[in-house]
Structure formats: C-alpha cells, structure tokens
C-alpha cells in the first residue's frame, strides 16, 4: 500500500512538471506578450528591450523556463494587477482558497450524500415510478446551466422568500473569529455557533447550485453500477448464505458498485472548479472562482497563473486521494 502511494506521488510530480510547462508556454503566447501586458502597446522599443532584459526574456527558452520554475516553486508569480492591485498574486490565492474549498466541499458532500443513496434505491426499484422520476430529474440536473440555476435559486429563496442570504459567506456584523479560513469550521472551533450557523446558511444556495451536475452524474453512475453488481454471481452467493439485507447491501453490492463511483467523483472535481467560477460570481463568494473571473476580464495574468497552476495541482491531489480510496476498496489494484 505504501509503495502504491509512493509510486502515485512520483507520478504526480511528473504531472505537475508538465502542467507547469503548459502554463509557462501559455504565458509566452499571451497576446502582445508579457512586455506589452506590462508596458502597454505604445512603449518605445528601447523601453521594451530594457524590460525584456530585466525580465530575462532575451535568454533562451529553456533558461526562461528554469527561471520560471524556480520562482514558481517559491510561490513568486508577481503582483496582482486587477483583482487586488499591488497584492502578491500568491497571497491573493491563499486568502481566497479556503472559500472555494469550503464551497466545493459542501457541494460534493451534497452530491455524494444524495447521489449514492438515491442511485442505489433507483436501481433496487428498477422501472418503478421512483426510478423513472429520478432518472428524468438527473437528466434535468445535467442539462440546466449552473449559472442559470444559481440565479434561479438566489432569486427564489434569497430575494423573493428571504429564507436564505443573498450573497457573501457570512454576515460581517457577526465579526467572527478567523482560525482556518473555513467559516463553518472556525465557528465550531471557537464555539461561536451562531457564526457557524450563519456561514452554513450562506453555503446552502451556492453549494446546491454547484452540486447539481456532480449529483446527477454520481446518481446515474451509482444506479448503473448497482444494476450491474446486483446481477453478479457473488451477490447470489451472498443470498444463498442467508445474509441479512443490510450485509448484502453494504458489503456485497455497494462495496463493489462504488468503485466506478469513486473514479467519477475524482473526475467531477474538474467540473466543480469550472462550476465554482460561475457560482461564486452569482453569490459574490470571494473565492478563487470569482478571482479567476475578474482576473480574466482585467487581464490580471499573475493571479491567473497562480490560480490555474494551483487548481491543476488541486485536481491532481484529489485524484491521488481518489486512487488511494480506490485501492483501499479494491484489493486487486493494491496487489497489482
């Protein structure tokens, strides 16, 4: 098991190096180049040359990449120009990352907590009205654009009905103590339960909006996978031993049926990051997604670089965790 994790960690380093190369090349291909981005289109050739030299842009490409890597490893990507002008780009990322992580975590939690049980129930009641209804529902879930759904939820439950807050992560007047940057967790740690509750209320609508697509996907994969596993010989063997429904469901059906679901969850994190950009915009969430959206419109390349690289690394880390979870469930992967 340890060797398995070590091997996957090494693979991860490789993936991150390739990713950094991609980000580097993307930087080089920016319209007008970095120099124009900094000096503007109308700079004199002399000033351009001076800056190029100062930035090391007159060096061969591989030297530049090496410089870029060295700086990247130290977290130096320059200052933000658009999102929070003057602030270090890495700093911008670090400040906002917990917000996005908290939102994504709750979204994924919703998606898993609803998708797996419903998928299992739909499969066990194949072709019943419940099954048909939930399949249609999940289709709608995939089809509705996240942006639109976020607006609808906000309009109905926040603006019209006043059930839940319209935007932000927490009521600033609560003046809650910050520990980790995860507001619900902070509230629990500091025993400021009203703050935790308020943060939770702020989380409901955006995480529901963000959860729909992963929920629909997890639901459908679980349903299909449970249907497959139910027909397996080993489930019949389990029945022939007279085991209780509970044991057959958990140990013999779900433990096998969840293997493809786990893989799906890992892949969903990519979509989750994209969805976060849209959802955070609607709810003024103040996370990475919102920063990326602003950085795009204001050409804040430093922030974009950091966010893209870190998002990619997050994606890779989560898939590593998924692989480990997979190996924990499936002994055949472990011993291969």
């Amino acid at each position, binding site marked *: 098991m340890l060797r398995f994790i070590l091997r996957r960690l090494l693979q991860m380093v490789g993936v991150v190096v390739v990713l950094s190369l991609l980000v580097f090349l993307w930087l080089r291909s920016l319209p007008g180049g970095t120099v124009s981005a900094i000096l503007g289109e109308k700079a004199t050739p002399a000033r351009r040359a001076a800056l190029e030299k100062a930035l090391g842009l007159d060096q061969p490409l591989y030297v530049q990449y090496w410089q870029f890597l060295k700086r990247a490893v130290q977290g130096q990507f320059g200052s933000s120009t658009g999102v929070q002008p003057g602030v270090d780009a890495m700093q911008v990322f670090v400040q906002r990352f917990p917000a996005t992580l908290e939102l994504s975590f709750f979204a994924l939690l919703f998606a898993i907590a609803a998708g797996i049980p419903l998928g299992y129930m739909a499969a066990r009641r194949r072709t019943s009205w419940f099954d048909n209804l939930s399949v249609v529902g999940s289709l709608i879930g995939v089809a509705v654009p996240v942006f639109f759904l976020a607006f609808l939820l906000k309009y109905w439950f926040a603006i019209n009905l006043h059930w839940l807050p319209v935007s932000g992560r927490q009521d600033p007047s609560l003046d809650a103590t910050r520990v980790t940057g995860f507001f619900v967790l902070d509230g629990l740690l500091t025993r400021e339960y009203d703050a935790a509750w308020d943060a939770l209320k702020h989380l409901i609508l955006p995480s529901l909006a963000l959860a729909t697509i992963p929920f629909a996907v997890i639901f459908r994969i679980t349903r299909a996978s449970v249907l497959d596993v139910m027909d397996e010989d080993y489930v019949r063997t389990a029945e*022939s*031993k*007279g085991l209780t429904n509970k044991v057959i469901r958990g*140990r013999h059906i779900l*433990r096998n049926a969840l293997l493809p679901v786990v893989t799906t969850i890992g892949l969903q994190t990519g979509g989750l990051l994209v969805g976060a950009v849209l959802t955070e915009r609607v709810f003024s969430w103040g996370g990475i997604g919102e920063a990326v959206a602003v950085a795009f419109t204001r050409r804040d390349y430093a922030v974009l670089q950091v966010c893209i690289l870190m998002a990619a690394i997050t994606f890779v880390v989560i898939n590593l965790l998924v692989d480990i979870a997979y190996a924990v469930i499936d*002994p*055949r992967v472990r011993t291969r």
Partner: protein
Amino acid sequence: MTETIENTRTRGHSEEPLLSVRDLTVTFTRQGEKPFVAVDGVSFDVRPGQTVGLVGESGCGKSVTSLAIMGLLPQRGVRVEGEVLYGGTNLLTQSKEQMRDRRGRDLGMIFQDPLSSLNPVVPIGVQVTEVLERHKGLSRKAATPLAREMLDKVGIPDPNRRLKDYPHQLSGGMRQRALIAMALACAPKVLIADEPTTALDVTIQAQILALLKELVEDSGTALVMITHDLGVVAGLVDRINVLYAGRIVERGDRHPLFAQPRHPYTHGLLSSIPRLDGERGTKLTPIPGSVSDNLPWANACAFAPRCSQPIDVCVEKTPEFVEDGPRALRCHNPVEVSR
C-alpha cells in the same frame, strides 16, 4: 453403539426423506413473451446422507430447480408451483425472511464458477465468518477460529494466511474449496452443488469431487449434485434423476441405471462418456441435434426429434412417468434390457 449411529447416519437411506420435491413447476412469465416452462412437474426425494444426481444437458432446468429449492429465483416474472418439503415444511410457502433464516443454515449451495461466485473485494475469511455471524450469532472474532478450521477441513493449506487473502490470490481449485467451506460452515443438512467442477481442470475436478464425497459422508449431509456430465458423478451419487426439457425422464439407483439405461436419452448420455476401460477405437456417439429441436411435452415426447428409436405414438402422446420401485421411466419405447 457409536458404530450403529454412524451406520444409520451415513448409509441409512431408509429414513424419511429430508428434502422432498413434489411436482415442482417453474414458469417464466416475461411481459410481452410467451410463458416459458423451465421446470415441469419435477419430483424427487433426498434422504439424509444420500447423494442424489440431477443430470441433463444445458438448459434442461437444473439450475432453475436448485434456485427454486433455495428460494433464490427472481421475485418478479416467475411462477413457482408444487411443493418443496424440508422436514415436512413447504419451503415455497415460507416468507422471505423465513427462507433467509434457512439459507446457509439448513440449506447450503455451491455454484459453478468459483471466481465470479466470490466477492472480489472481501477477504476469504470474512466471506466464511459472515455465515457464522449470521446464523450462529457469533462475533467476527469468535467466528474466525471456526472459519480457519473450516478452511483447513476443505484442504486449504496455510488457512491462517488464506483468511486474509482475497479471491484473486487463490487458485481455481482453492476458490471452489473456499466456497464449499462457506456453504458448509453452519453444517446445513442439505447441500446443493450446481456443476461445482465444470469450471475446473480435470485433475482439480477429481480432487473437489473426492472432497465433497468425504465431507458429506463424514457429516451425513444430503447432497444434491447437479451436472451435465454423468461421467463426473459416476463415483459419487447414490441415485440419479435424468432431466430433459424440464421433466424427469428416467430415475434409478446408480448401478442399475449405469448398467442398464432404459431411456434413449440416458443411453445416449452414457455412450457419449469416454470410458477409461473402453476398448481402443470404440467410437463415442454424441446425441444428434440440440435442445432447439425439442417438441412441446403437451402432446409428444420432447426428445422425439433426436431419439434413436422413436415410434409413431412418440409424436402423438406425452409419455407418462411410470414408477417401478426405485426405477422410473418416461418413454413409449424404452431401450431393450440387454443381458
């Protein structure tokens, strides 16, 4: 004293039947399809300690019969009629939960393909102990030594290590031994083995059959042995029921039936077995045609199109099942008894 008890337990076939299948009929009723009768009025008895064979070609209803006895047929799209008496109780009228209590405790079953019949993500040990936990109310911890003992008993070397192993780490023969250990963990009185050796090498086949024989003889378990290959069970069974297209066509004790098969189908099955003591150059004669040629039993003999000696009445009237002591036969024109 012990001697006589042993005797009645292992060879005392005169006792009341332990399992008595009466007119078992299983009809698949799929929506939009013609009802299909897979098992058609099958009756047979199994006494304590007895080994009864259920023999026939693929598709003749062997597995459906065994699943019906176990209460493992799908809930929907199936009609099951007749009786399956176990110690006097009709299993077919028992509730789902009552059957769940009996499976693994009173009735055990082992299946054809050992690899696909084992859960790939659960250690072998847990797959054995879970039966003991369920039916004996033991904790996992208390059940583990018993599971180890069981694995040892079915001839799995180094059972301590194997408890923690997963199915893919075992060889084919070992997997089937593990399945046998699971089925016998709670010492059920009836064990149904549905083609337990079909997926195994010839040498392993013999080992598994020897093991089954030894286990049922030691414990007095009644064994229902299902196979399409008469040769495989020749040394194991006491009585044989030959099944064709859902009906029993011939029955008898092993020796008389092997020596003098009366039904042309049984005769055909026996002549298609390669014999070790057969003269060299003796041709094996497989039965011509296939199940798809069958006639409906309603007013003919289903086997008629493939039969070596049909007469006119065979395609006009259903042959009755005529019992004569331990022998029974369903044929208008049986094979002559040769002397």
